[in-house]
């Protein structure tokens, strides 16, 4: 069983990771590089005078962007293994998953790993003010796990009570609140930061949808003639 999970997760994650990397390089990287011009002081944002909306941005960097592709593939392989592991447990409980249903699983993964933590800790563009890193990482993991538990209760709960209970761990981390900096000192135009956050989420959503599709497809293939 383990080799089948590893194989499916690896293939699905690698494919989705390459798609994520491509989308990130096209849609997210230019915004990140734009932000770094402010982070490094090459551009200065003054609210009264404004700042150019289309500055010259460095182009493709083989080393830097190559590493991004590798790490994107690696991270999505991690996601893929987790997703297929849960699919295998669902399968064993008699829940069948078609490739199309896999997309819904992928979107649930997106909500768990990206959308829910971003609700209180939006994707940070370089240069943004932020609280202590360790505290944010702990909150991030806690929120992802709690959201996953909540979604599972809603998806597989056998009664309305279970489904209602699922909302609790999903809401709790945000009532508790994410670690925030005492003061905001970001040197960036807000337009850059908001575009970055939404682009990062949009790309992740597309990548997770394909991850779910591929994960269910490869898992089907692996287990079909078992």
């Amino acid at each position, binding site marked *: *069983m*383990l080799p089948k*999970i*590893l194989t499916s*997760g690896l293939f699905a994650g690698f494919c989705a990771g390459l798609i994520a*990397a491509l989308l*990130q390089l096209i849609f*997210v*990287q230019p915004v*990140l590089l734009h932000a770094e011009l402010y982070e490094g002081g090459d551009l200065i944002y003054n609210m009264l005078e404004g700042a150019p909306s289309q500055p010259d941005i460095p182009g493709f960097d083989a080393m*830097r*962007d190559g*590493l*991004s592709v590798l*790490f*994107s593939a*690696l*991270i999505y*392989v*991690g*996601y*893929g*293994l*987790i997703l297929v*592991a*849960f699919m*295998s*447990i669902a*399968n*064993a409980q*008699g829940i*069948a*998953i*078609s*490739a*199309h249903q896999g997309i819904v699983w992928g979107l649930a993964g997106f909500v768990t790993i*990206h959308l829910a*933590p*971003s609700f209180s*800790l*939006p*994707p*940070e*563009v*370089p240069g943004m003010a*932020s609280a202590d*890193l360790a505290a*944010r*990482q702990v909150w*991030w993991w806690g929120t992802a796990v709690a959201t996953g538990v909540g979604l599972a209760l809603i998806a597989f709960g056998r009664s309305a009570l279970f489904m209602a209970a699922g909302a609790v761990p999903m809401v709790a981390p945000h009532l508790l609140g994410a670690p925030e900096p005492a003061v905001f000192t970001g040197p960036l135009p807000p337009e850059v930061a908001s575009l970055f956050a939404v682009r*990062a*989420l949009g*790309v*992740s959503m597309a990548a997770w949808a394909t991850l779910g599709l591929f994960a269910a*497809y490869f*898992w*089907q293939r692996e*287990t*079909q003639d*078992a």
Partner: protein
Amino acid sequence: MTILVQTSAKSTAKSTVLPAVMALAIGLGIIFVAGHVQASALHDAAHDVRHATGFPCH
């Protein structure tokens, strides 16, 4: 693409849960190392992806 997958009969809990837990541990390990460990070389190499993925980065 509507082929349904079901394991033959009821697999024992051990044979389905243990492999899933192991795959889960490997997956979480990969995300922790690639996304969250702050070793300098690792941070620099994964920097852009960490930001674009929404992980707390620095």
